């Protein structure tokens, strides 16, 4: 039986939690006032990696591309997945990268991890700010790893070096499908937001507690596990990263013009029970004589 090496790709993102997020008066995000944290989908990807640690004793590496302060996200991820190694790819020339140029950095970073080979890479299904969901699959393709998206559950057969995974697929106008697939390692998995690891055996639960404790200790001293790479240390070609390596540019950002009013609302005073009674009557009417069973 072989050992398992997994990696997680994460992202520092605006913190959308109430009290930390700040919106401008026009409804757009106030980036200057909003704090940054480990993105929620990155956190889920970290959980999926932790599952490998608990179940298979996997070695876990975490990598991110971002500004120096992104080490905070790495620390938060380590707290979740008890990472053995943290990588930050940080260089001014990476700024402004689109997904393809980001994938180039992440692919190169994976090769610097201190293992012979990464068997599984996890990433969130999309970032909460950019929301493209492209970086994961593009990194997978550049790595030459089989890509499995929308994964809600997975298991590894270490002997056969095979992953089985359940994927959730929504087909517009049809139905949802849970597809079970099997693929040889190495694979790249993006984790569906609904992913919830289940630890079934006593041994797993014991391992869970042990590694969770370890994670806490490690995250307190996360700098011990952290390596920072600039472009030169990574050995990336400046032509393929940052703005020069990005096929796409943001040409303009504008407010979406307000659509023409599609309905003419009757305005009702919410503090007037009499008026609200009438609203309730309308509701019943609309619902066709009401929903009494």
């Amino acid at each position: 039986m072989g050992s398992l090496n997994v990696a997680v790709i994460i992202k520092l993102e605006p913190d959308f939690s109430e009290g930390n997020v700040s919106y401008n008066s026009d409804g757009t995000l106030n980036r200057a006032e909003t704090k940054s944290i480990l993105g929620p989908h990155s956190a889920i990807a970290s959980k999926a990696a932790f599952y490998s640690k608990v179940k298979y004793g996997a070695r876990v590496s975490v990598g991110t591309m971002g500004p120096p302060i992104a080490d905070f996200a790495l620390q938060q991820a380590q707290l979740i997945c008890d990472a053995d190694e943290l990588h930050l790819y940080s260089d001014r020339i990476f700024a402004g990268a689109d997904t393809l140029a980001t994938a180039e950095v992440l692919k190169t970073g994976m090769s610097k991890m201190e293992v012979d080979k990464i068997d599984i890479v996890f990433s969130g299904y999309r970032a909460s700010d950019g929301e493209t969901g492209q970086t994961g699959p593009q990194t997978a393709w550049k790595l030459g790893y089989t890509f499995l998206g929308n994964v809600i559950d997975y298991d590894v057969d270490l002997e056969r070096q095979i992953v089985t995974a359940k994927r959730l697929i929504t087909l517009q106008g049809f139905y949802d499908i849970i597809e079970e697939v099997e693929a040889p390692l190495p694979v790249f998995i993006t984790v569906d937001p609904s992913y919830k690891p289940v630890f079934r055996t006593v041994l797993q639960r014991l391992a869970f507690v042990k590694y969770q404790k370890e994670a806490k200790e490690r995250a307190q001293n996360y700098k011990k596990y952290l390596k920072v790479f600039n472009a030169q240390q990574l050995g990336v070609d400046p032509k393929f990263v940052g703005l020069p390596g990005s096929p796409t540019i943001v040409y303009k950002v504008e407010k979406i013009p307000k659509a023409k009013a599609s309905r003419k609302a009757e305005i009702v005073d919410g503090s007037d029970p009499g008026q609200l009674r009438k609203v309730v009557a309308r509701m019943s009417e609309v619902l066709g004589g009401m929903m009494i069973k």
Partner: protein
Amino acid sequence: MTTTTSEGNYRHLYVIIEHEEGKPIPVSLEMLGEARRLMNDFNKKYSSNEKVIAVVLGDNVRKLCEELLLYGADAVIYAESPELRYTRNLIDTKIISQIALDKECVAKISPDYAEQFKKPRYMFFAADNIGRHLSSTVLAELESGLASDINKLVIEDLEIKHEHKTKGQSMNYEKILEMYRPDFSGFLWTTILCLDNRNPAIEREYHPQACSIIPGVFQPLTRDATKKGIIVDYVPKLEEQDLNVKILSRKVIKSAVDFDTRKAIISFGRGIKDSPEENIKLIEGLAKQLDAEIGISLPISKKPYAIDETIISTYMITDRVIGTSGRRVMPLLYVAVGISGAMQHIAGMKESEFVIAINPDENSPIKDECDIFIKGRMEDVIPILIEELRKQKNLVMEVRK
């Protein structure tokens, strides 16, 4: 300054079709409709004859290919095999990339343009669970740019001055696809362009210009049974390891969230923020009275409140999001509670029969999208609504007795 050396290397608009057992997913026809409109204008404007080419992978898809010609495709390139019955990222990416670079296919469709052909000019994918990933890997393979979740497209010549792309000089780019994507807030539109690097230090060509398109945004064309076109059978070149992902089973499931059969839907947004837990309980109460399903706006799916875990995992989930990045619903009654009415959200609920909004701010955009606007705080309004609904029910029960 204009660079025209590469003109002719890039032709046509390729639309990657998604289907389930030969039946097109709606967004496939929507993309064809928009592709047709764009290329009609394009060919007129540039006096050219570039095509809308649908690309289909599957098993027994010949009928589907014929059908696509009636919905706006000039031509269809398809690859057929039992191995392609269900989509798999690795093999699909390889075949689509091969098709995109295949001169012979183009020669059969448009011989005039075949000689110089290198790559598609434009490419469309669906922004769904399959297309989002497929577009990413195909464009990684083709090494070009991709914009995701687009809901408006324009083709234009643009004067570009960019630090990297043009080394700060002003240059004319022809036939550029302007790809508009709404941001997560639904209030901003970002236009993404995919441009060749013309800066001598980093010169590089980036084609196709590609995007994934939000389902439900564009109108499909009306089926035109008189339309004719070319269908090209492509035989993919595959290696054994391309087939090593195996689909073991495939189960159709019903989402726990039922937006389709319920007559009423109540959605809530960030307006619950003063006391999220109590407010969600109020909304549950109202939903119970109306036998309604509960939906949310996109920001809520980011789990912005530190409240009871069960409430979070029940309600603050992507499955419940209504809008362009979630479900599109059309109940008889839609109640929007504490939702400001970003375009994102409106797109998902505007076809509801009757809309009631509860919001303290009369200036919020939802006012223009509802039939009754209850001006007030949900904390005050909902208890009264619940009470009135109860009374009414009791009344009916009394009468029945």
